[in-house]
């Protein structure tokens, strides 16, 4: 996957002369190359453009300038139908697990939905649901429940299962653990590592927690106000953060872990 000089934003005024007056620009000149099978974590504070970046990759938000390539295909130059076909190779775990699951469907219907769109026959769908629920650790009685009867950890597992069910090669995760307790968070982190070992998808993880990124990513990217300020393996970033923002971020972790508590104030 490849992002070349991407500028993206949301339209605020329709007939303005300049692009920068017409849009509220969120992402400013993002260049990103992700090899297949690589795991990248995107880190930033709220409002820094992490979720917008995922929208651009998902094909939901056309960038103002620049190019997005998935498996060498520039997705925004394709007509809509072909674009959808390319984007089928991407699985997406959305951030808000309360809004992301249809409350009136049972879990097995939720999992079957993406496959029904692909017009697979019933037997294959059932087989696939069985495989995937074994992979993410969903007990079989959960398949007959509706999302509001599930706990937070189970709901997150359903979301991961739904993202993986059509065998995507790229997996996008938007804050997969931020709404969970630490004990359940550890379960999900281990689950995602297992999934990676078995399926080897390209993983792009959005988070604001460096400690989570440490377990789930080979490389981190720190975004501040729509600009990539830091890029590299996490160990290097921890040891010698180049930008001011990354330094304060790393420092704040050590402060919270009470190693160096008086430096901030």
């Amino acid at each position, binding site marked *: 996957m490849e992002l070349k000089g991407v500028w993206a934003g949301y339209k605020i005024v329709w007939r303005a002369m300049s692009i920068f007056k017409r849009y509220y620009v969120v992402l400013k000149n993002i260049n990103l190359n992700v090899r297949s099978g690589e795991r990248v974590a995107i880190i930033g*504070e*709220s409002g820094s453009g992490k979720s917008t970046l995922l929208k651009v990759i998902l094909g939901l938000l056309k960038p103002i300038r620049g190019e997005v390539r998935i498996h060498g295909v520039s997705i925004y130059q394709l007509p809509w139908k072909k674009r959808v076909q390319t984007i089928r190779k991407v699985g997406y775990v959305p951030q808000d697990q309360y809004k992301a699951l249809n409350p009136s469907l049972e879990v097995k219907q939720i999992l079957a939905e993406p496959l029904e769109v692909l017009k697979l026959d019933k037997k294959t769908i059932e087989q696939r649901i069985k495989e995937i629920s074994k992979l993410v650790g969903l007990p079989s009685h959960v398949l007959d429940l509706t999302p509001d009867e599930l*706990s*937070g*950890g*189970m709901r997150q597992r359903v979301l991961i299962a739904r993202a993986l069910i059509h065998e995507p090669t790229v997996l996008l995760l938007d804050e997969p653990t931020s709404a969970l*307790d*630490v*004990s*359940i*968070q*550890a*379960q999900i*982190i*281990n689950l995602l590592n297992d999934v990676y070992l078995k399926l080897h998808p390209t993983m792009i993880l959005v988070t*604001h*927690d*460096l*400690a*989570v990124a*440490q*377990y789930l990513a080979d490389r981190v990217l720190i975004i501040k106000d729509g600009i990539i300020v830091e890029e590299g393996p996490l160990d290097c970033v*921890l040891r010698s953060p180049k930008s001011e923002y990354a330094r*304060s*971020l*790393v*420092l*704040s*972790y*050590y*402060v*919270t*872990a*009470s190693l160096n*508590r008086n430096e*901030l*104030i």
Partner: protein
Amino acid sequence: MVLAIRAENLKVGYASEEGYVIWATRGVNLEVSEGEALCLVGESGCGKSTIASAIAGVLPPHSITEGRLWIFDRLVIDGPRHRFNGVRGRTVSLIPQNPGTSLNPFITVEDHFYYIVRELHKLNREGARKTALEHLRMVGLNSDVLDKYPHQLSGGMQQRVLIAIALASGARIVVADEPTSSVDANLRAQILALINKLRKELKLTLLLITHDMLSTASVCDKIAVMYAGKIVEVGSTQAVLNKPYHPYTRMLLESIPVLGSKKPLKPLPGEPPSLLEDFSRCPFRDRCPFRADVCEKEPPLVPVNGTGKPHYTMCWRFKEVIEHG
């Protein structure tokens, strides 16, 4: 030492529509001395926010209480009776969980202060503005904030304003209900450092509710770990974090990702029990690697000897737990 908060077998339940009672806390014994900082940790649904609202006196009307709670020698909960008047907001104040929804969007920051100190200290506009400025300075904000509406402030600033409001009442006990759960990592350190600084300057008694065990180590003197409506381990921060006696505390610590150390995460198996379960057995039994036949009975909270400081745990087999690790 004056006891600021003392709870004796405190039970808080919520009546359900079907007529039965769901007990969110099932008999909590707690003692917090004046000027001490206690941290309540636990997973969601373990009853820690219920304890916070019981102490702050903001229990919802459909809640049912048993047991007793004293705040500075004043009996505020005595069985089903509540006597929070004069304590709520004056002696105890609450820093709520969600800064975005806790401020009134229709009034400015100054008005927030005005309505509170008008009731509590009978101050007029001018006096309120002065108090507001004084407390905003304390939390590191300046006078520009006074005339702003909550939506004009960032999340961190809203949280600071809430802390300032909680302090403006002149309360001696501050209950902070997950003050850092909805802010970024960068801000979290700042907010915790701020709470720590203010606590020392004003000699406040602090009750911090959180699910983030490590980040509170720098703030609190004591930690109480809650599980399924009861305190399962309580002791000084150092002792609990370095030498936990209860298997739950131990496993909770092992499941926290720590930056810089690549230890493998050991998540707790299973999920926390529903509060409708039968609690004649040890509630942690099903997830515990140390379970034995004794665990069919619920263990009492017993003192652990050795450290000199009071350290209690609720486990039959705590000696085996310590020997094992």
